[in-house]
């Protein structure tokens, strides 16, 4: 154990000194020009103590000094794993759906609000998953289609007074058309080039929204979007339907949940279909896919358009929820966030992406008290995750699931 410690203590010391050098400019230099050291040293010594304990535990673990604890722990973990494997998948799905259904009753207004954001991002993440996880195309301008969907509903509703349910398919359609227009010239490229071009096109769409004053009202955004309207059965004077606006957050939560369930089913079915197989072959080896008779261009365009459809629908819900849209909601940072969620959760894995979204939306909310440090925590979490689980929280299970099913 001592030898092992000697091997790494030097790196550890260098790391801690480097951290001190990083911390002091952030904490010790003040706006009025004074320099202090007290706070830096205090925080640094806390981190030093904490990391030293972690470090010692790590060394003892790799030196197998913890066998007496680790053995029963791993046995227990295995037990849990086999127990969870014994339960059929539909039990888990039922539990998840029931939890999602009763959630707004348990959580307050704030909790429901955060949950609605989570649902929007799940929809976006799953849509992007079609493009990135299945077809293997790195898309950095994805949020633009969310914007197209949101603006379609906003403009149609405010200018022409069209109802939400009429606009929802139109939003999906316009996002799909935007996807095809952007995709047609760009999808001839591969890899890094594609990423750069999609980034460019994403920005172009945002800048159009920002500058087309007559249509989008520019950076001021569009105000006064109507919420979702539904016909609710009333029994007061006989049996009639009354038109009501979904204004209560809890109601809206259920609509967003419906959208997510629709998206999950859609993406799942696509994944299992012949189209999904074509997408995966393109991701694995585009030339080989072409040689096997897959029309790579059409399937890539289809992946791009399908991703845009899910984003467009989420966008319409977003506009109905916020009652206001402006180009600021659709910046590159949002695209990057959605991509982070997909990568963190596990590309191609539906439960993984849901977990990734929950982690990336909920974590910053939980750590809200840490104020500006929460972004630090966020960054550190991302780094640690990528070090320890590079394939994502729940890596996609693709080992022959589809084929065995077909064969049986």
């Amino acid at each position: 154990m001592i030898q092992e410690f000697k091997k790494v203590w030097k790196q550890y010391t260098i790391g801690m000194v480097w951290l001190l050098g990083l911390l002091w400019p952030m904490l010790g230099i003040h706006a009025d020009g004074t320099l202090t050291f007290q706070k830096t040293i205090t925080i640094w010594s806390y981190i030093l103590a904490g990391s030293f304990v972690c470090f010692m535990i790590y060394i003892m673990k790799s030196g197998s000094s913890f066998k007496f604890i680790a053995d029963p722990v791993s046995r227990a973990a295995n037990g849990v794993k086999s127990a969870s494997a014994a339960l059929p998948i539909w039990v888990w799905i039922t539990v998840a759906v029931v939890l999602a259904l009763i959630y707004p009753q348990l959580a307050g207004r704030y909790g429901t609000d955060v949950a609605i954001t989570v649902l929007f991002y799940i929809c976006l993440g799953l849509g992007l998953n079609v493009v990135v996880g299945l077809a293997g195309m790195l898309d950095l301008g994805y949020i633009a289609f969310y914007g197209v969907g949101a603006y379609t509903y906003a403009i149609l509703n405010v200018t022409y007074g069209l109802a939400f349910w009429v606009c929802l398919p139109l939003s999906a359609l316009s996002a799909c058309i935007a996807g095809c227009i952007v995709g047609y010239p760009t999808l001839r490229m591969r890899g890094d080039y594609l990423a750069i071009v999609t980034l460019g096109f994403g920005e172009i769409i945002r800048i159009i929204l920002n500058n087309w004053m007559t249509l989008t009202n520019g950076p001021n955004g569009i105000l006064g979007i109507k919420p979702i309207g539904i016909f609710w059965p009333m029994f007061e004077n006989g049996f009639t339907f009354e038109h009501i606006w979904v204004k209560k957050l809890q109601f809206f939560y259920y609509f967003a949940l419906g959208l997510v369930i629709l998206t999950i089913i859609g993406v799942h079915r696509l994944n299992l279909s012949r189209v999904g197989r074509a997408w995966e072959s393109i991701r694995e080896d585009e030339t080989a896919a072409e040689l096997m008779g897959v029309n790579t261009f059409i399937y890539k365009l289809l992946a791009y358009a399908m991703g845009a459809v899910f984003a467009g629908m989420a966008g319409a819900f977003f506009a109905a929820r916020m009652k206001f849209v402006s180009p600021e909601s659709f910046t590159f940072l949002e695209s990057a966030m959605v991509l982070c969620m997909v990568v963190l959760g596990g590309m191609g894995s539906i439960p993984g992406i849901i977990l990734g979204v929950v982690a990336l939306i909920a974590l910053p909310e939980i750590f809200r008290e840490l104020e500006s440090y929460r972004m630090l925590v966020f960054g550190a979490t991302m780094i640690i995750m990528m070090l320890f689980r590079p394939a994502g929280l729940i890596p996609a299970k693709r080992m022959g699931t589809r084929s065995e099913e077909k064969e049986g």
Partner: protein
Amino acid sequence: MSLQPILELKNVHSGYGSIKALKGISLKVMPGEIVAIIGANGAGKSTTLMTICGIVPIEKGEIYYDGKLINKVSAEKLPTMGLCQVPEGRRIFPRLSVMENLRLGAFHRDDTDQIMKDIQHSYEMFPILGERKAQQGGTLSGGEQQMLAIARALMTKPKVLLLDEPSLGLAPIIIQQIFDIIAKINKEEDVTILLVEQNANLALQAASRGYVVETGEITLEDEAQSLLTNPKIREAYLGE
């Protein structure tokens, strides 16, 4: 031979941008034959196959398959017509299972029952693939991957199979096995084979006729047996 060639190249030119890889390739493949194209590194052997398949765009000349001009036919339509390639370096889909790799070979077909039968048939022909059907393609050994690549191409029900360097990076005993399989496919499945190889000795033993490619041009064309005994060929390609 009064038969019409099933695959014919007439003065084909192609290349990558300003680099001209093929400077007038002409060759004929008769139905039922095994034809070998031999040549050194960078002679244009693989480019010839990639040009036939439409991956590398053709600049000049004509390619006829089954009497039809296929210059402008896009790559993904050729498997439907019965022309399929096993690309160099195998290029199986590494993260898909063996089974899914095979199903992708049958991508353009919609006769599900027959596809399942054909997959069973592949397992009979390559028992190792049957044992590993749920395994990811990338976890197979080199020889197994080559078998998978051949089996995947056979799933397209080809009339003509283009094989690019099937011996690449394989152990001698496995290479022999692969060439036995190639001969078997040619005889039992009635598939015409155009074979590109650096291993000239093996390729000419398997083939009935051969072409020698040097810097994008056909320099020699003959019966495989005569090429094998040709002193020039023996010196240049067979290491004597």
